[in-house]
Structure formats: C-alpha cells, structure tokens
C-alpha cells in the first residue's frame, strides 16, 4: 500500500504535470525550431505569436459560447482553434511581407533577423494587449478532469491523490499527433522537402525551380498553426495572460536547443527534458521516502535544491547536454 502511495505521489506531482508541461514546451519549441530550421533565425516573436493566436481563439470562443455552441466534454476553444490559426497565419504572413521579406532579399545576417524579430515581438506584444487587454483570462470549459483527486482517493482508498486534467491529456495527445505529422511532412512530402532544401541553400533551391515565396509562406503558416495550437492548449490548461507568453519563450528556446535546433524530434525531447528536470530536481522527496522506508522521519525535506533554483536547474542540464552534444541531442543546425 505504501509503495502504491509513493508511486501515486510521484505520478501525481512529477510524472503527470511534467509530461503535460513538457508537451506544452515541445509544441512551442516545434514552432521555434521550424522557423530556425527553414528561415534560419531565432524568432523571438514566437511567444507573442502564441499569445496573439490564443487571443483570437479566445475571442472566437467567446462568440461561440454566447451563441450557445459547445463541444461536449471538450473545450469549446478547440472549435475556435482553426479560426485562430487562420487569423494568426494572416498576421504572420503580413508581418513577413512587410518586415522579414526585405531582410531576406538583402541577405541580412541571421542576427539582424533575430533583432528584427525582437522588434516584431514588441509590436505584437502591444497588438495583443490592445486586442484583449492585459488581464488574466480563463476560457476553458467542458470537463475539467479525466481523473480528479477526490474521486481517485475515494475509488482507490489511497492516501495520496491522483489527478489528470482533461487539458493535460489533450495537450499530450495533440503534441504527439502534431510532431508526427510535422515529421512526416518534412521528411516525406515534396513540399516538406522543398522547405528543407530552401533552408539548406536558398540560391540552389531557386535554381531547382522551388518557389521561395511559397516555401516561406508555408513555413509561416505552419509556424502560425503550431503557435496557436501551443498557445491555446497552454491557455486552456493554465490561463491566458499576455505577459506569460513572453516568459514562456525562455524555456521554449531552451527546449528547442537541448533537442537540437531545426529538428522536430529534438523539440519534443527537449521539451520533456526541460520539464522533467525542473520538476524532479526540486521535488521534495520526503513523503515518498517516508512511504518507502517505514519509520523514517527525516528532518529535512530531501529536496536537492529549492524551487527558487528550478530554472537554474533546467539551464544547468541544458548546458551539460550541450557540452557533450554541442548541437543538441538530435544534431541540430547552426547558422
């Protein structure tokens, strides 16, 4: 029984949340990695693209809700998602036309594009806030839990609870589907391959008859879709607040890099590594130890590092990974 309790405690406080968080990071990292892989710059505006996409999705969700449209046990936002994606795609395509395309034409160095994306980040930042304000917004509806803590305790009679939110499950499943689809798309389809060709050698892509504007547009559309999906799922699971999406940028980049920039599989792996390291290293193992070793009453919490350092932990792991695998776990690119 105690062993079961220990197991459930680990599941509830480490495995389930870290998996969901990891999937969220992975979805964000996919977008970053895609832009990096194909357009060859670190897009700092990605966090705010996520925010924008989510904001639009929320507005549409509200409209749907007030029209009485729902999605059964699933969140209404999932119906709104395609519209959010479309709007975000339009926005980023517009941005590309007005802003980025010029720098591609003059072949500016990647760091200039990165700086440009910082400019875009500021702009989108303001735009999103103009659109939906700065407040925290909750827009999740439908069934909240797959397994709720109380039910679980009642059903099993264990002392430790276990909860799985439906949004957590949706996030993990979506992440799996999206990464598989993206991987397949890039590795197997003609368009996907042409995107990789473009990323490898733009001039030669041109000489092979690949239409660069099409590749760029495709990339942005996919990135917009990824950003909106990631942002909406994150917002469903936690809540929406424009500022938080900017903050999300840091772990998202960390995830993309640990895995190897430009590599979709890497983004997934990176997301989980960052998430698990944050949760596990700062977890207080006291309770688990007490279950496992009867009669053990430690004074301390058996916590390796306090939670203040959780970010430091994930970055330390990142640095260690990079020291042994300088282009990330999955052999990413470097411009």
């Amino acid at each position, binding site marked *: 029984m105690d062993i079961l309790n220990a197991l459930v405690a680990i599941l509830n406080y480490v495995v389930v949340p870290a998996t969901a968080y990891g999937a969220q990071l992975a979805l964000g990292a996919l977008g970053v990695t895609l832009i990096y892989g194909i357009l060859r710059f670190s897009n700092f505006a990605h966090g705010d693209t996520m925010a924008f996409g989510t904001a639009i999705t929320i507005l549409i969700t509200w409209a749907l809700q007030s029209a009485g449209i729902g999605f059964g046990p699933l969140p209404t936002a999932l119906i709104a998602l395609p519209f959010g994606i479309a709007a975000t795609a339009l926005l980023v395509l517009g941005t590309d036309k007005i802003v980025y395309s010029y720098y591609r034409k003059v072949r500016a160095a990647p760091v200039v594009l990165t700086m440009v994306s910082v400019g875009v980040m500021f702009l989108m930042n303001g735009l999103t806030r103009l659109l939906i304000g700065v407040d925290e917004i909750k827009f999740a509806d439908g069934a909240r839990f797959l397994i709720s803590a109380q039910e679980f305790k009642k059903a099993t009679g264990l002392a430790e609870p276990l909860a799985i939110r439906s949004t957590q499950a949706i996030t993990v499943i979506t992440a799996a589907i999206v990464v598989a689809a993206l991987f397949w798309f890039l590795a197997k389809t003609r368009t996907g*391959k042409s995107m990789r060709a473009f990323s490898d050698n733009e001039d030669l*892509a041109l000489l092979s*008859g690949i239409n660069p504007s099409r590749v760029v547009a495709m990339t942005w559309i996919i990135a917009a879709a990824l950003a909106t999906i990631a942002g909406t799922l994150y917002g469903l699971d936690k809540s929406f607040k424009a500022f938080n999406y900017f903050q999300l940028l840091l772990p998202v980049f960390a995830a993309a890099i640990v895995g190897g920039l430009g590599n979709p599989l890497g983004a997934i792996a990176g997301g989980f590594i960052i998430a698990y390291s944050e949760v596990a290293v700062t977890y207080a193992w006291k309770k688990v130890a007490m279950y496992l070793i009867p009669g053990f009453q430690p004074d301390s919490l058996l916590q390796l590092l306090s939670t203040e350092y959780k970010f430091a932990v994930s970055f330390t792991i990142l640095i260690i990974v990079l020291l042994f695998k300088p282009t990330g776990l999955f052999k990413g690119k470097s411009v």
Partner: protein
Amino acid sequence: MSFLDASSMTGGYGAADILHDCTLKVEKGQIAVIVGPNGAGKSTAMKAVFGMLRLRAGKVTLDGDDITALSPQERVRKGMGFVPQVNNVFPTMSVEENLEMGAFIRTDDFRDTMEQVYDLFPILREKRFQNAGELSGGQRQQVAVGRALMTKPKLLMLDEPTAGVSPIVMDELFDRIIEVARTGISILMVEQNARQALEIADMGYVLVQGANRYTDTGAALMADPEVRRTFLGG
C-alpha cells in the same frame, strides 16, 4: 536566332560593372564553353544569363522568347538548368534528396532519370542516404551535376563542373555532357580545364574583364597559339 541568345549584357553587383557588352550564344544541341582568367566575369555572365543579376543593358532570349525579365525560378520552368560554381548542393539533405530536388518541377516519374544519374556516377548510388555535406569535394561536384540533370533541362549551364573531380570522372562527365548534347540539349559551361573542354566544344568564348575577347569554334581557339599561351596554359 540561336537557341540561347544573351547579347550585349552589361551589369555587375554594385556600382561598377563587371560585364561589358558581353554576348553568349548557344545553338540547339551544341556545347558552348566559356574560358578566361580568374575574375574575368565568367560566373557573373552565367548568373546574368540565369537572371540572378540585374542587367543594366542587354537582352536574353531562349528559343526565341525574351526572358530578360524573368526570375530564376521562372527560367527553370522554361527549361534552364544551372550548376553554380560554389554552394551547389543541399548539404544537410541526403544525396537522393538532392537529386529529388533537382526534379522538383517535374510532375512525371523521374525514377529512371535518377537511375541514369546513378549509372553515370556510381559513387552516388553508394552514398545515396548520406548527407551531401559529408561528401568529398569531388563527390559533391558529382551530386551537383546530377541534380541539374534531374531537371531534364533544354539548356544546361555548368559553372566549372570538373573543378576538383578526378581525371576519370572528368572524362566520364565530358562523355556524358556530349551524350546529353546529342539528345538535343544545349550546354553552356565555364571551364578551367579548358583544353579538354574546348576539345568537345562547338563554340568557345574567351572572356576577359567582362568582355568577349575571342569567339570561335572550340577547335579554332585550341589552334590559336595566342589563345593557348595566354589563356589555356600553353
């Protein structure tokens, strides 16, 4: 009118012109070779023909159509193929994917063309799943030419295709180029292995400082002692 007719091209990268009233022509199924000192503007002329350089003056026609205003990828669709001098492979894509990208604009089945390329460069078949960036210099060059052949172009432009390839491969390459030309494809190439190239050329252009210095059949240029001494290394 010639199949490819690029006449009086003038232009460059910035303020100063590199090309001065440069004219290049290729007939259908013929091989034209450009030779000249380093920095003469040979690559620049190729880029100009392919629309990668803005011309201040001059006109390019292909099969009678004026293509001066077309973008490079539109020219590809018009049947032009180009192997640049440098950066001519997709380094993080496999050899096979490089070839597939060559066939990007084709909608028919290109399996047999790929087989032909593999027959021509057997080493590529061996390395088909390796990334092109990991190949040796000469192997890359073979990938580059292979990629251009995949387009099944009407006009094939090659910028120093034999730079860095071994003699045996160079011979094979020239053999293949001749065969390609025999099927009615026109070839325009820049070569520093000039004597070998002029041997198979119908037409030769000697370019110096962006202008045509000598223009004649390949054999005639080979025979000209002045040309041999100054441009072909004796």
